[in-house]
C-alpha cells in the first residue's frame, strides 16, 4: 500500500492537466481538486478522523468506509452543485471533526451500520461544501477526481496511523490523536459560530 501511495503521489505530481482549461493558476483542474480538501484544515482533520476510526473499529469498517465515503460524498456534492440548500454546512463540517474525534478518543465501538450512518451523514456535509465551491470553468473531470483522490489519501493517512492500535502504546497515541482532532473541531466550531 505504501508503494501504491508513492505511485499515486508520483502520478499526482506528474500531471499537467491542472492548468489546461482555466485561466487562473489553481482555479481548476486536478491540482485545484487535490488542493481543495488539503487546504481546508476542517476537512483534513475530519477525513483523517474517518481513517482513524475505521482502523480503530477494525475489519470490515476499515475497508468499508473508504469505499462508501466517496460515493456518499459525491451525493452531497450533487446537492451542492444543484444548489440544494443544507442548513449549517460549515457547522456540520466542524461538528464532524468533534464527533469523529471523540469517537476515536473515547474508543466508541458502535455497530457497523451506526458507524456508517454517522460517517455518511458527515460525508454529505463535506461533499456539499466541495460541490458548492467548485470553481467556475474548472476542468470538471480532473477537478472532481483530484478532490476525491485527496479525500481518499487523507483517509489512508488516518488508517495508516490508526493501525498503531495493534500495540498498547499505539492505541494510546491514536486516542490522543482523536482527542486532538476533537479539540481542533471545537476550535473550528467556535470559529463558524462566532
Amino acid at each position: 500500500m505504501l508503494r501504491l501511495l508513492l505511485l499515486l503521489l508520483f502520478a499526482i505530481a506528474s500531471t499537467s492537466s491542472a492548468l489546461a482549461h482555466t485561466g487562473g493558476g489553481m482555479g481548476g483542474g486536478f491540482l485545484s481538486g487535490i488542493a481543495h480538501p488539503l487546504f481546508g484544515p476542517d476537512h483534513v482533520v475530519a477525513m483523517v478522523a474517518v481513517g482513524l476510526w475505521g482502523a480503530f473499529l477494525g475489519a470490515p469498517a476499515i475497508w468499508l468506509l473508504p469505499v462508501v465515503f466517496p460515493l456518499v460524498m459525491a451525493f452531497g456534492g450533487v446537492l451542492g452543485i444543484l444548489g440544494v440548500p443544507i442548513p449549517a454546512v460549515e457547522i456540520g463540517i466542524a461538528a464532524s471533526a468533534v464527533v469523529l474525534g471523540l469517537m476515536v478518543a473515547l474508543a466508541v465501538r458502535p455497530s457497523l451500520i451506526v458507524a456508517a450512518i454517522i460517517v455518511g451523514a458527515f460525508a454529505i456535509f463535506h461533499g456539499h461544501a466541495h460541490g458548492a465551491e467548485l470553481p467556475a470553468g474548472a476542468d470538471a473531470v480532473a477537478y472532481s477526481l483530484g478532490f476525491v483522490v485527496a479525500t481518499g489519501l487523507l483517509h489512508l493517512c488516518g488508517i495508516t496511523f490508526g493501525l498503531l492500535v495493534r500495540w498498547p502504546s499505539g492505541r494510546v497515541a491514536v486516542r490522543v490523536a482523536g482527542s486532538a482532532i476533537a479539540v481542533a473541531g471545537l476550535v473550528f466550531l467556535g470559529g463558524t459560530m462566532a
Partner: protein
Amino acid sequence: MTLWGAALAALVVGFSDSASAHPVIQGVTGFPGGLLHPVLEPAHALSLVALGLMVGQQRAPHRMPLMVAFAGALLAAILLVVFAFAVTEAGTVLLACGGLAGLLVAIARPLPIALTGALIVIAGVALELDSVPAIISVQDTLLALAGTAFGAWLALMVVAGSTLDPKREWQRVGVRVLGSWAAASVILVLTLKFAK
C-alpha cells in the same frame, strides 16, 4: 499484480491531459495521435480505468468475451463513422458507462455477463464516436480512429490484466476503492454538466 494494476490506473489518469477532437499533442496526428488519445483525454482515461477494473474483477470465463466484445465495439464504431454516423453526446455516454462500471467495481458482486457485456459494448462505441478527429482527410481520420481503437483496447487489457485475481484482502479493497473514486468523480462531472 493488483498493486501494479492500481499504480497503472493512477498513472493513466494522473498523466491524462485535457483534449477534445483536437490532437492531444500538437503535431501528433494520424495513428499515433489516435493511439494516445484514450489515455491522454481525462474522461476517456477515467472510463477506461473503471471499465478495465470491472473486467478484471469478473470471473475468469467472462473476461475474454468482454475483451473481445470491447474490440468488436471499437471496430464497429469505426464502421459507423465511415457511414457518417455521429452523435453529439458520445462523451457523456462514455462517462456514464465509466461511472456505472466504477460503481459495480465498488459493490464487487458477481455480475451477469449480459450487463457487463452491454456496458462494455456501449462504452466502446461511445469512446470511438467521441474520438473522431477534427481533420478533413479521410485517411488521417481512419488512421486516428484505428489508433484510438488499438490504444483503448490495449489500455483496457493492461488495467484488467494487472488486476486479475488479487490474493490479499487489501488488494481487493484497493480495486474497490479505485472504482468508488471513479464513480464519485463521474457522478459529480455529470451533475455539473447537466446543471449548467
